[in-house]
């Protein structure tokens, strides 16, 4: 029996040994290519790397060629207008203005992609706020970048999922999350709540922001000004729109423009002084063929090559305008004209915001208080682009119209300018009928306040979010 005791004790010892180290033992396997939030927010460098990660995701290949990144969002808007022509394939349904059903890739992508980025930004804001190791000054800059990005993503989201702000501020808008990883879906907000949230974020970003940045893909104070100018432009808050637009380009028109590089293909965000925000690309870090707009506009490099220019559009440009980059394809149908504005390469950067847009926002905003000043400012841009430009004799509303046209001439292909203006100005978006288009939408042109200016709520969201009514898409 004595022997038994010895062995029983020995065995017990084995068990106890296992017991005492089991927690450590079980926690031993740790992932090697990922870290916890403690590491990320343990230092400014960690938080900076997280910001880099978020920006990298804006340039990603999220789901498909036409639903990959911020560039594809903007390019879908470009396709909805009158100035460009899609010859089929990618973005064809956007061109058709019917890519908005609850199960469609466009709808699901726009929603999920924006919220994917919003959640990352929420994690950034929370993590930096709660960090005990990042010093106060760094926190300010980091947070202001976070707020600027969040305002930007919510603003883009709001444009896609409801009428414009001024249509009815009580309409439902997408849910607002201000904390990360809240895994139960939230209810819809209202347009008013949404724009209150966006303006709070962007004002915070401006208040604490810094001009320093690694490169032009980061959301520094200048970018925050630019976002604010866009937001207040949509809201019709002209004094603020004017002030922030002015701050975004610096107030000196000549110094903010580089007409000589306009024709170089928009491939390098550091070429000239105009780029405020862009997505840089390199050979080994690229959205590759998901790169919109260049992979689609180009007719000279091998890519999708499926986007042409409405043959009437070049008539708006003089021969001496640096922006006159139009070429003839030799075809006689809707594919007669193309533009060399965007040169495609894997390392071609993508433009998201430029100073001329800000100059034109300021001009538009000034119009409401000082039409002459608006016209003078407009002319400064016009003559910069075309040295032989003559100031127009327009007065009154015609000045505004001239600004809108200038916006198309300056920014076409970049941010979906026609769609953006038609939507916020509550105008239609009719297409030219003289065989300029593959799909002229003769019987169903885009009318003012057309529902096709926004997307339906994704069915997957409705199915999985207990706080969104099943009837949300009725009458949308």
């Amino acid at each position, binding site marked *: 029996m004595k022997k038994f005791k010895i062995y029983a004790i020995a065995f017990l010892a084995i068990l106890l040994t*296992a017991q005492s180290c089991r927690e450590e033992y079980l926690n031993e396997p740790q*992932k090697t*290519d990922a870290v916890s939030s403690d590491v990320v927010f343990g230092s400014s460098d960690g938080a900076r790397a997280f910001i880099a990660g978020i920006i990298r995701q804006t340039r990603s290949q999220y789901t498909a060629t036409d639903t990959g990144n911020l560039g594809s969002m903007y390019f879908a808007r470009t396709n909805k207008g009158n100035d460009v022509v899609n010859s089929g394939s990618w973005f064809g349904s956007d061109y058709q203005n019917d890519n908005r059903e609850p199960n469609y890739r466009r709808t699901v992508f726009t929603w999920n992609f924006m919220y994917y980025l919003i959640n*990352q930004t929420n994690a950034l804001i929370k993590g930096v706020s709660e960090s005990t190791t990042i010093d106060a000054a760094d926190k300010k800059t980091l947070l202001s970048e976070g707020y600027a990005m969040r305002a930007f993503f919510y603003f883009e989201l709001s444009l896609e999922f409801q009428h414009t702000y001024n249509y009815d501020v009580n309409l439902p808008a997408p849910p607002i999350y201000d904390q990360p990883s809240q895994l139960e879906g939230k209810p819809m907000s209202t347009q008013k709540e949404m724009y209150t949230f966006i303006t709070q974020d962007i004002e915070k970003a401006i208040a604490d922001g810094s001009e320093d940045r690694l490169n032009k893909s980061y959301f520094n104070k200048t970018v925050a000004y630019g976002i604010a100018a866009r937001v207040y432009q949509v809201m019709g808050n002209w004094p603020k729109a004017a002030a922030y637009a002015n701050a975004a380009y610096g107030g000196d028109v000549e110094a903010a423009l580089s007409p000589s590089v306009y024709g170089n293909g928009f491939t390098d965000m550091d070429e000239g002084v105009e780029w405020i925000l862009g997505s840089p690309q390199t050979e080994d870090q690229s959205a590759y063929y998901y790169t919109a707009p260049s992979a689609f506009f180009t007719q000279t490099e091998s890519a999708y090559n499926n986007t042409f220019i409405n043959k009437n559009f070049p008539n708006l440009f003089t021969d001496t305008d640096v922006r006159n980059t139009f070429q003839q394809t030799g075809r006689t149908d809707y594919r007669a004209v193309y533009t060399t504005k965007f040169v495609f390469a894997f390392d071609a950067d993508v433009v998201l915001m430029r100073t001329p847009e800000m100059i034109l926002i300021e001009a538009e905003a000034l119009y409401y208080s000082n039409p002459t000043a608006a016209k003078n400012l407009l002319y400064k841009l016009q003559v910069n682009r075309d040295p032989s430009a003559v100031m127009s004799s327009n007065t009154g509303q015609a000045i505004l119209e001239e600004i809108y046209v200038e916006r198309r001439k300056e920014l076409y292909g970049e941010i979906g300018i026609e769609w953006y203006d038609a939507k916020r100005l509550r105008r239609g978006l009719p297409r030219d009928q003289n065989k300029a288009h593959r799909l002229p939408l003769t019987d169903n042109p885009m009318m003012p306040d057309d529902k096709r200016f926004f997307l339906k709520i994704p069915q997957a969201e409705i199915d999985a979010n207990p706080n969104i009514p099943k009837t949300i898409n009725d009458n949308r």
Partner: protein
Amino acid sequence: MTLNLRIVAIGVLFFTGQALTAQKKKADSTTTKNIDEVVILGTYGIKESQEQKVGSYSLIKSKVLEKPNAVSLDLAIAGQAAGVVINANSGQPGSNARVTIRGISSLTGNTQPLYVIDGVPVLTGDQAGIATTSNALAMINPADIESIEVLKDGVTTSIYGSRGAAGVIVIKTKSGKKGGKFNFNSEFGAGAPAFEKYKFLNAAQQIQLMTTGYMSQNFSEADARQKAIELYNWDGKTDVSWKDATRRNSAITSRSNINYSGGSDNATIYASLGYTDQEGITRDATYNRVNATLKANWKMTDKLVVSMSNILSRSNQKGPLDYGYFQNPILGSKFINNTQPVYNADGSYNLALVSGLGTPPNNFNLVALQDINKRKSTFTKILSSLGVDYSFAKNFRFSSNLGIDYNSYNEHEWANPDFGDGSTANPNGLGYGMQSDNGYEIWNWSNLVHYNVKLGNDQIHEINVSAGAEATSEYDKFSFVTRRGYNSLNYNQTTVSAGANIDGGGGDYSGYKLIGYIARASYGFKELVNLTGSFRRDGYSHFGDNFKYGNFAAGGFNVNLHKIDAVSKMFDNLQLRASYGAVGNTGGQDYYYQKYSLYGLSTYQDTSAYTITSPGNENLRWEKSKKYNVGLDIGILQNRVKLTVDLYRNIINDQLTPSIPNAGSTGFSSLVGNSLASTSQGVEANLNLDIFKNENFQWTLSGNFSYNDSEVTGLTSQATFLTQSFGKRYTIGHNPTEWYLYSYAGVDKSNGDALWYTDASKTTTTNDTSKATEFFTGFNALPKYNAGLTNTLTVGNFSANILMTYAGGYHVYDLWERYFNNDGQDFLGSQELDALNGWTPDNPNSDRPQFRPGNPSSRLHSTRYLYKGDHIRLKSADLGYRLNKNALGLENANSIYLYIRGVNLATIAFDKNLKFDPEANANTLGTVGGMGVYDQTQPNLRQFLFGVSIDF
């Protein structure tokens, strides 16, 4: 007498450690009844006699494995055990297999049973990185296996806790026997596809088809024919079957094993050396393996036994890719029609093929690719275990088993820069070389104390208690590098280093830790009634803190009615059993680290970059399978007639799911968690008949039959279905493998259009594929019925063994046939012969739509490519003759056994239109959703082998 024998048997068992022991009285078996088989059930040193059996398991003996029907042991036991369905992924030698025990054990988690070899839970599954399919179990030589136990119900598997939900397969290798004996076994044979009924157009017929096609576009017959000839650039005489050109005439198999078994009263060893070489049917498919095994048992004292088992194995595998790769010769050869020559007139490869495989210069001359490109995998395995069995006090015994399974997988792939996959333009240059190095190791240590006692008058109370702990640690790593930029026409420099530019690379490691506490007790009263209960508590490193530990309990009882005198007159065995057990499933590698909220690391421009990859799930936990089983064992006529019937029902809840739909607005449109539920239920029966048992004539018939049906019972809270690839959608109330497809409605006889149904009631049809709808077909991919029947005959010195298998109640799908059996959408490749019978104005009663070149809407995945899979197969048959020593006049050999045998000799398919092997549909996508899909993998082989086995 029974009792005494068993005690002796148990004594022996104690001393042979972990070895399998099936003790039978050697002689005069006809006069003794109730000689019980006592097995050490499972791997924890727990013994159980037939009379103590409360659960359900199948036992497969070494005989089946000495002349295996496949290179890997899991495939070699197909048809041998009720409720166990085994399919090869491919006819590629060394391919992985899908083994399901009692139906679908998990919808989205791991469905692979736990395999334990000599106490060590080993690496299983498909380890292929570059190779198409590489079965980790193929590294074990089936000839070295003494027995395989398939543990199926709750009470036998629950003791394996979190890993046993898909069943447990316990493998014990051979031990030496007293004395000294060599055995040499060698066999050699050849094979060809077992079942393959595709018929394709020859060159003239290809031209004829296209001529008819162009005529439908209003060309005159002469113009149409001219256009067809120009399309293929046909010289008027070439007629090459690309299928034949890419295959061997016959695939050669050779296998040799030599083993020694011997020892003294106190020490035995078993040693073996084996070599297997098997070709696949395509010219580039080979497999060879060298095995060495050493097993030793040493009875150090009356109370202490030490055993050791070592398996060393190395294999080389070469083979093409399967699936939709152009370079897959099984598929690719269907995309090149007979008008295309392999070689140019000067003997060089024809790289100007007109085919469905891309256009020149990115040309896929499959024969050239087989000759030039490389794809090779080398695997090494070391499996070693050490066992101690110590009877340290009266009625007490301590058993310990420490084992390690080490695997190294090295693979190399090279694609030439001039044509095929390597010729795709890339910034890093043409050509492609990749080398990968993967390692996997697992160590396992179990320690148990057993207490076995018989109490009371006549020892009517038998009590067995075991308790202990087990720790498992798994670690795997990979690294790879790819280079591009190879020199044109330089086909000897294929190493990775020869590529000019680094194209990619990476490496990582991961692993899990598991700790388990085990307790088991059984009580028997007069051998009449037995009760067994077990409990296991597992801790697992990848589950959330709230659920890191899981408890798994089981219980069962039986009544041995034949112990009642009145019953024993008629029944040698009449046992009723019932059991329940809860078993877990960790879900496998897909669920590693998912409990954590993590920031993935990458780079952005020149800085490092983090991105949130998952919100983490602190509630991640075990899938639980509740297994219910009732069974009946009958033995009559001195046990010459034995019947076992089991009914079971498994309820599987909290199934691990990689993608629970979630509100995208939260930032995560899907989550990892536990949400699905399903059930699986069925009946199993085994019948064993010793029809003749004379000295010179023995005939045994043993059969098994099983019925299984599985059903989805729970989805995620919001979803009404979950789409699964391919052609399935999990819906409550449906079998998870039920086909959900567009339904083909044949031809519109008025105009030759193809038609599809627009609704499940099949009342309206459409010729517009965008208006066709998918719906449930009522057909499942997993067979409902399976059966195996073995005839064993011995007449004098002749012996024969015939195994037939049956699978029924299921449908299989040809994933790629839509490309070579459609109505004109694909005309650059070949088409099935039946294309000639399509609708034309002159042939308006055809049951096949009109062939129209460029027809845009004829390639829809639909029931057109769904076939009944039911079949009967003559799985194996062998006939041998034993020459005894006297007859030979040999002094050194004790006996020589000569045999011929065949594998997959005949297959009767119930669907006359079925074109591919209904067993070669195993697990295309590695998931339940992928079941029943034929992926143009290498066909299974029908083999004829000649062999000799010499004892000396």
